[in-house]
């Protein structure tokens, strides 16, 4: 008796598994091909710039062609030159590596992290000629993705004097450029105020 029950249970499970297989194949056509391809078509028609990665040329104008782009306004890239605003530290690969987006994942009590923060704070303070106590948190911490395209208005503010000096510009001009590339909270309450580093640097390059 028991063995026939097991056999019939197995037969039932096999029948259901085959029905499941047919179901999955049809789902794959609908959800795995038709849906993403349709969305891709909608994106390329309705939002071609965003859907292609928010790319910009060296004069800051929008493009969907990677060969003429110098970066994406949404993705941080390394800026080391003294005439540029600098992004946040990055834990993505060796820094700003888009094939290895990552946070440091170091815990809040980790002594290595504390040491790295102190070191960065001193370096930033020296570079910008400010008191270490005035260096904001985003300047000394790596972001969630390692590709954070933005910095806080506070971090931008302490970089203004250096950038103005290096470019031989009045401080007020650089302050105005920062102001123009600062976004407030979305709808007044969502997220935080921020400055897009690539857009700001390209605007300075383009104007001067």
């Amino acid at each position, binding site marked *: 008796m028991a063995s026939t029950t097991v056999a019939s249970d197995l037969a039932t499970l096999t029948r259901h598994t085959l029905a499941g297989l047919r179901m*999955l194949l049809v789902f794959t056509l609908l959800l*795995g091909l038709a849906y993403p391809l349709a969305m891709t078509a909608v994106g390329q028609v309705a939002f071609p710039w965003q859907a292609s990665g928010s790319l910009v040329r060296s004069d800051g104008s929008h493009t969907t062609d990677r060969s003429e782009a110098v970066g994406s306004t949404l993705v941080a890239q390394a800026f080391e030159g003294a005439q540029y605003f600098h992004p946040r530290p990055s834990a993505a690969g060796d820094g700003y590596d888009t094939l290895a987006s990552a946070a440091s*994942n170091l815990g809040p009590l980790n002594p290595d992290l504390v040491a790295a923060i102190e070191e960065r704070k001193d370096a930033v303070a020296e570079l910008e000629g400010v008191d270490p106590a005035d260096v904001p948190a985003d300047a000394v911490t790596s972001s969630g993705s390692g590709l954070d395209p933005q910095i806080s208005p506070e971090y931008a503010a302490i970089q203004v004097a250096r950038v103005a000096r290096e470019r031989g510009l009045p401080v007020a001009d650089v302050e105005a450029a920062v102001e123009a590339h600062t976004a407030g909270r979305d709808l007044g309450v969502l997220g935080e105020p921020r400055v897009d580093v690539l857009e700001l640097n390209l605007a300075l390059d383009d104007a001067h």
Partner: protein
Amino acid sequence: MTAVSTPVLAAVAQALVLVALLAAVHAPLGAYMARVYSSPRHLRAERLWYRVVRVDPDAEQRWTTYLMSLLGFSLVSVLVLYGMLRLQQHLPWNLGFTGFDPAGAWNTAVSFTTNTNWQWYSGEAAAGHLVQMAGLAVQNFVSASVGMAAAIALVRGFARSGTDARIGNFWSDLTRGVTRILLPLSLVAAVLLMAGGVIQNLDPHTALTTVEGATQQSLGGPVASQEAIKELGTNGGGFFNANSGHPLENPTPFTNLVEIFLLLLVPFTLPRTFGILVGDKRQGWAVLGVTAGLFTASLALTTWAEMAGPGAAPQAAGAAMEGKETRFGLAGSALFAVATTATSTGAVNASHDSLTAPGGGLVLFNMLLGEVAPGGVGAGLYGMLVLAVVAVFIAGLMVGRTPEYLGKKIGRREMTLVALYVLTTPALVLVGTAAAVVARPGLAGLQESGPHGLSEVLYAYASAANNNGSAFGGLTSGTPFYEVTQGIAMLAGRFVPIALVLALAGCLARQAVVPATSGTLPTHRPLFAGLLATVAIIVVGLTFIPVLSLGPVVESLS
């Protein structure tokens, strides 16, 4: 000097915008979903669909048959996904990536089929577009629909009486969940995300030259379409390694709010559907009240912890910004972290490993709670209904009456199933954690030693067994030991509870309704809601206090 600072006011306002949006759609979407699962009519396209697939969508199934269909479907899902991952180099749009190794493919196939979306790999460095679209994203849809089907089957168990344990038709529930709920909502969500800057193309990753002349890879991929269902189906598997912290997956505070809204949408609306289907909306309000209360408490505490920023590293930096993106800030990251762990999503927009010690402990607690406040799509509702049965049972013991819930007697058989359900995930979490901290290959994966190391392991097994999928990123889980043991935890953590829930549904559907008397405990009043919340916390508390004490609690105190 104002008493409350601008960031705090903005944090509160941001949460209130979210609440307002969820409240606005609660009643209409809840009613719509109730119609989806109770209407006898099929759409014309669905009839064609059932003919092609050769299933009978009108055959009422006993719970055993329903379970067989569900398991059969999930079994082929694991096998097909495993095959796609192993054979990636032979598939189109593979971007030059090779197949996954056996342990890795097993882990990922189980992970996406069980709605967990634990990821040991980095999407941008391992998965081509076809595997993402036709493999992973398909499971994002169907695993979510499977969870909803199981929840609806349990609700039918309460709503029906005197049947021979028939609880609906799995194929019809599975199909309608996709075609009438998840797919239409995803279409809208994907368009919103693209408008906000999420990429959607089929381009490979190619190099561009940056302003300073360095080379950086420009990324491509059908991200918006996948991002939509990743959140809506409480899946959480990121297209890229940084998940929703990646600026191409979640570019602005606006898209952040859209994503949080999506991942809370179905879990917070299903209690309404439940109330309608059992013929008493007040029962839905009671369940919603408990989930909303627990969620609000967790959100308030976590946001406070992140904004206060205790701990050596946040103190040194001036704020807990390690692992967080500028555009989301402390509040936008805390809101996402609570929403993703209180549902079973597991997407992250910040590094959970770098949260403050109390913040990290709180999001861990959300998962240990069994993800019932509000929980994953479907899984949250059936988890909460099981706890409601425990609550009426305890109340019954106190007054010496046979417990009843929604007119059904909770007898020995029902309580046995419920007790097994409550024990399953804690057993998987604690046995898994214990094994990892005594086995050498387990210890090898730890980035940190001491209490934070224990938190990393506990978080990993809590995430796997509860089908969450988020990680304390420090743990190196891409080793055969973690890939295999976590795969087992995910599989058992998904299907053992579902089997028990469907068995319970069968038992309940067979019973006649017991008319309510003056001695019946009303289960729609605040008294019962309070009891239910207490039961949820006490069950998890008694189970996990020892291990929590050794991990996050020690860390918070040091």
